[in-house]
C-alpha cells in the first residue's frame, strides 16, 4: 500500500503506476455534475484543488454542533464528467481524481499531459470512507448546488483506493478489458457460426 499525501506535486503522482493500491491523506474536495457544469460555463473551481484530489462523491453530510459531520462518502460514477474533465484538470491543477468506473481517453490524455492520476475508490464502501474524514474544513456552493453536489473540503486520513489510470498512460481498466475480451472470445467460440460483426 502506497501512501499519498495531499497536496502533492507532479513528481509524486508521476511515480504512481496503474495497479498501485494507495492510501490518501490530506486535502480531498468533492465535486460532481453541478461543479463541472459551473466550471464549463465560466465559473471558478475551488483554488484549493491545485495539487489536491477531486472526489466524485455526493456525501451524506449531517449538521454537528456548529460544523458538519460526513455520514457516508462513497464514490459516484465518473463517466458523466468526461466531457468537462480535460479542461477541468488543466484549469485547476488537480493531481488526483477519485471516482468509480474510470474515464475516457480524452480525459486520460489530459491526465498524462498535466500529471494527474485516477484512483478507483471502493464503490459502496461509504461507511468506511466517511470514517476516514477527520475534519470538514469548509464547504463551497452549499446553497446553489445543494448538499450532495456541494464542494466539501475534507481532511482525510487513510482513504483507500487503487490507481486505475496513471499519469504515464497506464490503465488498469484497459488492461483488464483487453484480457477479459480475449477470454470472452474463447468462451464463446463455436457458440454460433452466424455471429455478425
Amino acid at each position, binding site marked *: *500500500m502506497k501512501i499519498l499525501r495531499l497536496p502533492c506535486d507532479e513528481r509524486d503522482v508521476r511515480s504512481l503506476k496503474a495497479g498501485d493500491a494507495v492510501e490518501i491523506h490530506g486535502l480531498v474536495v468533492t465535486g460532481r455534475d453541478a461543479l463541472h457544469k459551473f466550471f464549463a460555463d465560466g465559473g471558478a473551481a475551488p483554488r484549493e484543488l491545485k495539487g489536491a484530489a477531486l472526489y466524485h462523491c455526493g456525501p451524506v453530510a449531517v449538521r454537528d454542533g456548529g460544523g458538519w459531520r460526513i455520514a457516508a462518502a462513497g464514490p459516484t460514477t465518473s463517466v458523466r464528467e468526461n466531457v468537462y474533465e480535460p479542461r477541468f484538470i488543466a484549469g485547476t491543477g488537480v493531481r488526483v481524481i477519485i471516482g468509480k468506473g474510470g474515464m475516457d481517453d480524452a480525459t486520460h490524455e489530459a491526465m498524462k499531459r498535466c500529471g494527474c492520476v485516477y484512483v478507483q475508490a471502493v464503490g*459502496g464502501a*461509504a461507511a468506511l470512507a466517511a*470514517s476516514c474524514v477527520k475534519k470538514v474544513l469548509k464547504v463551497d456552493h452549499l446553497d446553489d448546488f445543494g448538499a450532495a453536489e456541494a464542494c466539501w473540503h475534507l481532511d482525510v486520513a487513510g482513504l483507500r483506493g*487503487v490507481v486505475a489510470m496513471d499519469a504515464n498512460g497506464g490503465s488498469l481498466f484497459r488492461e483488464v478489458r483487453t*484480457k*477479459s475480451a480475449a477470454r470472452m472470445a474463447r*468462451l464463446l467460440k463455436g*457458440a454460433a457460426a452466424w455471429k455478425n*460483426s
Partner: protein
Amino acid sequence: MTAVEQLTELVRRTTSSLPGDVVRALERALGAERKGSSASVVISTILENCALAEKGKTPLCQDTGTLSFYVDEALRGKVTRKAVNRAVAEATRLGLLRRNCIDTASGRSIDDNCGEGAPAIHYCSRKGVTLLMKGGGSENMSRQYSLPDASLGAGRDMEGVRACVLDAVAKAQGYGCAPGILGVCVGGDRATGFAVAKEQLLRSLDEKPTEFESRLLADANSLGIGPMGLGGRTTLLGVKLAFRPRLPASYFVTVAYMCWACRRRTILVK
C-alpha cells in the same frame, strides 16, 4: 411493537448489515485472491466497511437504493401501504435511508422516499416480510436480451443464454460494484422477466447451485474482471437462474445485476 416499528427496525437492519451468506461469500472470495493484489485490497475494504456499518447501525452504502418489500399475502391487513410508507418515512428521518427519491416530472426531491409505487410492495406467497435494497449503480447494469441476438451470436438455446449472461458481466466492468450477484430469468414477457430476475436475488448464496449456474459462475469469474473491475478472480459471488414459460415468438433473457451490497432481510411480523 407495532407493525410500523417492526418495519422500521427491518429497514435499520437491512441498510446496516449484509446477510450472512453474502458475508461468507465475500470472505471466501478474499481467500481466493492473491495477497496484496488490488482485488484483495478491495474485498478487505468491503468487509471492513460492513463491520463498521453493522457496529454503528449506519447505512453500509450511501445509495440506499430502490426499496422492494415482499409481503406474505396473509399479512395484507397488517403490513399495509400506509404502514410501509410510515416506516420508510421514519427511517429516512432517522438517516437510515438517504433522500433518494426524485419526482420524475418536476425533478424535485421526494424527501420522505414515498411516492406512487415507491417503495415497491409485492404481496406474494413468501413467509413474513422481506426487504430488498438495490442501489442505482447496479440497477443501471441490469439488462434484457431478446434471442436470437446476432451481435452476440446468441441463439435460442442454453449456449445463447450463456452468451447473454457473460455479455452482461463484461458490460458491467468498473460500474456495477463487483463482485456482483446475478438474478437471471429465461423466458416470460419483458415485464415478468425483470420481476422474476430480481426475485432470484432473494435466494441465499448458500443454496446449492445447479450445474448450469455453476458453469455460468465459473465462466464469469474466468473473465478476470475482478472486484470493482480492477482485475482478479472474483467477478461474481453467485448466479441464480429461473425459467418462465414464453410465447413462441419471444425468447427473453433478463439479467438483474446486484452489487456486492446485496441488502436483503426477512422478518416475521407479529
